[in-house]
């Protein structure tokens, strides 16, 4: 049987890859996709715990995370479209007018 | 420690079932093209293919050979990887949903149970929806990767249409799921056996879901026609509007794969319609054991064939919707109607169970 630590290790690796992409990438849509990657890593952790502790609440938490991620993706992409209309660029280094 | 003989038997049976189903499906798709050309031709008072073989029955073979020998043209600026991936994706996803369709009653042979279904999932219908949602990618990626105006517009319009009608499709089915109480396709069909009894008297009406969910069936079938991009919802592929839509820049085998994917989707949707609303494999069963095992499969195929004929009949008869009419119909009419259907069904089910 696969031990819990292996599932959690996969979750952590995916999460850290998401963090790395979030920090290093310049394209705003790719950054957004790395956020979704992080959310998925968290979902995996929830469902793994749900199985190993025999509690169905973990799966429901993952369910709500998916639903909230959907709402967030919709609004976030709408914001990105509005940003693109104003700056004609998808590079976050071009959105620095409020930086000191 | 090896695999037990029971597991080995199941594995072997699954391989054989998959091979048979794939073979039958591919032949059905080939002859569906022949049937479509013949039926549409006769509706339009002409003959259709009649030269290649008797009544043009070898026409699909000739078409296959033609597709194999055609030159495979790839546009210059097309994105190679995605251009290759899109028809492959569309094709394989179209064939994937057949895996959960039950074709008939199982039978027992030598102590082993043999079901006419490749995989009996207890979330069977959600699996079909999942594969349908993934099917949108084939079309939108095809439209984008061809690097051509017509393809991009056709691809975007077609994907927007598919995801809009996916909602209506899902809602239409919820009423049936409430009545059957299960998501497994086999159990939904098994719940439709026998006849309707009205206060104890046997009306010899089959216990099919169509009689309690007529609105659900109409919504489902309309949404299914829109999902499969068929007339009257085939604007994204209309020749007069968008040249070829998302498959404009595709040629030979890749184009044939899109074609086959469309027909496979039609077959899947018709199979689902018979399973959900028309009692699946239920029909008069008589005779010796072998006949009893095969007759349900025959009834199932007959019902699916009726739906496919109806699809082709619509193609020969109806004009196509304009795109804004199509989207307005899906969002402003079918979606509220589906929600009302769910409301009414849940009220009746709750009242009857109280």
């Amino acid at each position: 049987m696969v031990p819990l630590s292996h599932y959690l290790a996969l979750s952590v690796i995916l999460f850290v890859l998401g963090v790395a992409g979030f920090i290093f990438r310049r394209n705003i849509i790719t950054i957004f996709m790395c956020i979704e990657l992080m959310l998925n890593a968290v979902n995996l952790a929830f469902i793994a715990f749900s199985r190993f502790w025999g509690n169905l609440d973990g799966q429901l938490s993952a369910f709500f995370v998916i639903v909230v991620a959907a709402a967030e993706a919709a609004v976030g992409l709408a914001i990105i479209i509005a940003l693109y209309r104003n700056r004609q660029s998808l590079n976050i280094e071009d959105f620095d007018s409020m930086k000191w | 420690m090896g695999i037990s003989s029971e597991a080995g038997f199941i594995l072997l049976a699954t391989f054989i079932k998959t091979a048979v189903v794939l073979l039958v499906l591919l032949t059905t798709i080939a002859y569906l093209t022949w049937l479509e050309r013949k039926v549409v031709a006769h509706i339009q008072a002409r003959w259709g293919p009649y030269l290649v073989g008797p009544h043009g029955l070898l026409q699909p073979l000739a078409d296959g050979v033609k597709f194999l020998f055609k030159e495979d043209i790839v546009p210059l600026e097309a994105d190679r990887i995605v251009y290759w991936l899109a028809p492959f994706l569309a094709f394989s996803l179209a064939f994937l949903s057949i895996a959960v369709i039950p074709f008939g009653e199982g039978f027992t042979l030598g102590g082993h149970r043999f079901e006419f279904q490749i995989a009996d999932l207890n979330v069977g219908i959600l699996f079909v929806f999942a594969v349908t949602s993934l099917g949108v990618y084939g079309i939108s990626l095809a439209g984008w990767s061809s690097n051509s105006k017509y393809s991009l517009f056709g691809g975007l319009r077609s994907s927007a249409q598919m995801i809009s009608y996916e909602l209506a499709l899902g809602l239409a089915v919820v009423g049936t799921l409430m009545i059957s109480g299960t998501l497994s396709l086999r159990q939904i069909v098994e719940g439709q056996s026998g006849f309707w009894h009205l206060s104890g008297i046997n009306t010899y009406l089959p216990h099919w879901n169509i009689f309690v969910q007529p609105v659900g069936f109409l919504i489902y079938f309309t949404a299914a026609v829109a999902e499969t991009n068929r007339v009257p919802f085939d604007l994204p592929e209309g020749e007069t509007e968008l040249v070829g839509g998302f498959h404009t820049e595709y040629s030979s085998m890749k184009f044939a794969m899109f074609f086959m994917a469309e027909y496979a989707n039609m077959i899947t949707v018709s199979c689902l319609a018979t399973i959900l609303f028309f009692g699946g494999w239920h029909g008069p069963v008589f005779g010796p054991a072998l006949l009893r095992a095969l007759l349900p499969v025959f009834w199932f195929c007959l019902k699916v064939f009726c739906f496919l004929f109806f699809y082709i009949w619509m193609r020969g008869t109806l004009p196509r919707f304009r795109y804004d009419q199509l989207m307005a119909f899906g969002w402003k009419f079918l979606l509220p109607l589906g929600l009302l259907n769910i409301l009414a069904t849940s009220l009746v089910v709750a009242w009857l169970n109280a």
Partner: protein
Amino acid sequence: MEILFYICAALAVLAALNVIVQRTPVYSALSLIVVLCALAVVYLLLGAEFMAVIQVIVYAGAIMVLFIFVIMLLNAGREIPSQRSRLAQWLGAPLVLALLAEVLVAIWRQFPDTGGPAVAAFDAGPEAIGHLLFRNYVLPFEVTSVLILVAILGAVVLARKES
């Protein structure tokens, strides 16, 4: 059966690496879809069949379609490399690896058992989830529907053209 988990895990990690490495957003999106489907298989292996199918229908089949639409509409081409500080890039990679190592060690210390689940497999089908969802979690469910309504309104308003 365990080999399937390791295959899917390797696939998910490779695809996630591809998401953060690819310069073209469409390839990143396609790799993210592969990650989502690999995770759906892992959920199936964990006995969460309903969540696996919901993951494919909602995440891979709806949210990622939205991403791909936006990428195609905005015609996001290849990304140009950063013109800012080089120091940040040279410092960033080792720090990320340090983060990874730190959390992995913490997990290994906390959950050292190498056995399987202590609890037997339980029914995680749609009926069980439905019971839980509409009894214990009915308030979060209703709040989530309001949240989705707000998100729809927000997205429509934000993405509308100035007329």
